[in-house]
């Protein structure tokens, strides 16, 4: 999977979780950019991303990731393994 493909899939997951088809995620997108992305939705988002890619984030990654770019880094790393 290329990075573009990861972002494309992530975009779908974000649109689905936040129920908003206008969302377009970029490398630097953070929780501040999406209105409903609070701590509650963060965990739902993580669960949805894990399911979509068939991966598992560690608790450390869940709390430490700063933006969508970092999320994509972790996903890319795990898919390669």
């Amino acid at each position, binding site marked *: 999977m290329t990075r573009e493909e990861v972002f494309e899939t992530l975009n779908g997951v974000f649109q689905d979780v936040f129920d908003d088809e206008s969302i377009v995620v970029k490398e630097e997108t953070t929780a501040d950019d999406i209105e409903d992305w609070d*701590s509650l939705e963060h*965990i739902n988002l993580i*669960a949805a991303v894990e399911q979509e890619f068939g991966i598992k984030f*560690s*608790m450390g990654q*869940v*709390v430490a990731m700063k933006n969508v770019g970092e999320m994509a880094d972790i996903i890319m790393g795990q898919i390669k393994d």
Partner: protein
Amino acid sequence: MPASFTSFYFLCFYTFILLIYYLIPRKTQWVFLLFASAAFYLLTGNGLLILYPAAACLTAYGAVRVMAGTEDVKKRRWALAAALLLLIGALVVLKYINFGIYTINAAAFLCGAQGEMIGVFDFLVPLGISFYTFSILGYIVDVYNGIAKPQKNFFKTALYGMYFPSILSGPILRYREDGEQFFEPHPFGYRQVTFGLQRMVWGFFKTLVISERMNIVVNTVYDNYTAYPGSYIWIATICFAFQLYTNFSGSMDIVLGMSQTFGIRLPENFETPFFSKNISEYWRRWHISLGVWMKEYVFYPLLRTNMFMELGKKLRKKFGKKRGKQLTTFLAMLILWFTVGIWHGGDWKFVIGSGLLHWFYIVSGELLAPFFRKCMEKLSIDAKSKWVDGFRVLRTFFLVNIGFVFFRAASTTDACRMLASAVGVWNVGDLLRGGIFTLGLDVIETVIAIVSLLLLLAVSLLHQKGSVRERIEKKPVLFRFALWYALLFYIILLGHYGPDYSAAEFIYQGF
């Protein structure tokens, strides 16, 4: 030495430490702070109880060393489990065992049993146990999760766990963010020391001038609430809200300011919480370090357990995506808020007033949000107008105050009786006809209290637009000195203190 940052002896102790801190070689500063921290804990009358935080640090050190030395997942998990068991075990036994016993006895009594089923224990609880335990727990979990660097030196771990400014009343620290700076050399910086001292002065203003005055009114009414019904309970509760806020946030100003004079930045614990527009926002601005801790180490892990994942799936299937998701989070939040409540103390009044009641507010707020939105649309009220915002701030303050009645009342039963009286007795006239001056503050004292509260309000409003100290710094030197000296004299003249005067303890210190 009393365990209070406002005592004369403590200020002597602190001045001595600060002087020596910048005179010794910088590499040894952290060692000196560790000695100072141990001395502080011993001098504040804890004596042998110092063994508890020391043992907690030793537990952290041991667990972290095991984790650092192996890649074996099983071993790491065992080290984590053992450390959590020891630390949480000590906290539960020392702080909560009597809560369990009281609850069992009360349940037995309701079922018709005579006398007490089980006798209560009489433990000496080490000061600050809830704060240092949480700081240390977070560190161990972060090392396990690979986001904090494991510390190799036991004495450095001990300084992180027992750092004297924050051990008694927080803020709860995060090693991965705050840890390393404790051990770095800190050269003397005029700006950092003066900024720190200025913040301490502001903390003294909050605690000695405002909190101590509010304390008098609160005690008068809460210690004898049958004699002060209706509106007296309202006024005393509002006073308590300001007492608790100025007491706790004032002590944080002293702690963070003091720490800043050592060149160590601690996390903020308050962000003008009474300006919050809803309860969720309030908890992001009141006791921030506790909220962050709870979110990271209780709420997230809970939602990621298999049990909650499965439950989420089932509920989504049954109630649809949106409702299902909502129900799962409400359930996890119930556990979260119970934990937040009980953290404040092993008593149902805390579990309700600082926990479950807030859960109820948030859940009902979420459920009723669509209804309120429709009402606003029908009445064509602009949801973004300043008036609506103002209403929301007042509503949130009111809801928080109901929780404070439980927090301050002697028991849950007393809190319920007081709330009933507050709603049932209408006597605002009495209060306005001079009743307000029978609560322990005469006319002059009341004026001082109101002026001081207005000053606090003005500074809080200014703070919304950035650091007040930085703005003062840019003013001409004469103005700056006049301002800080005026505040200092205001505190000296009007603060409740003195060698024989024991300020009410920091309320959060017992936790």
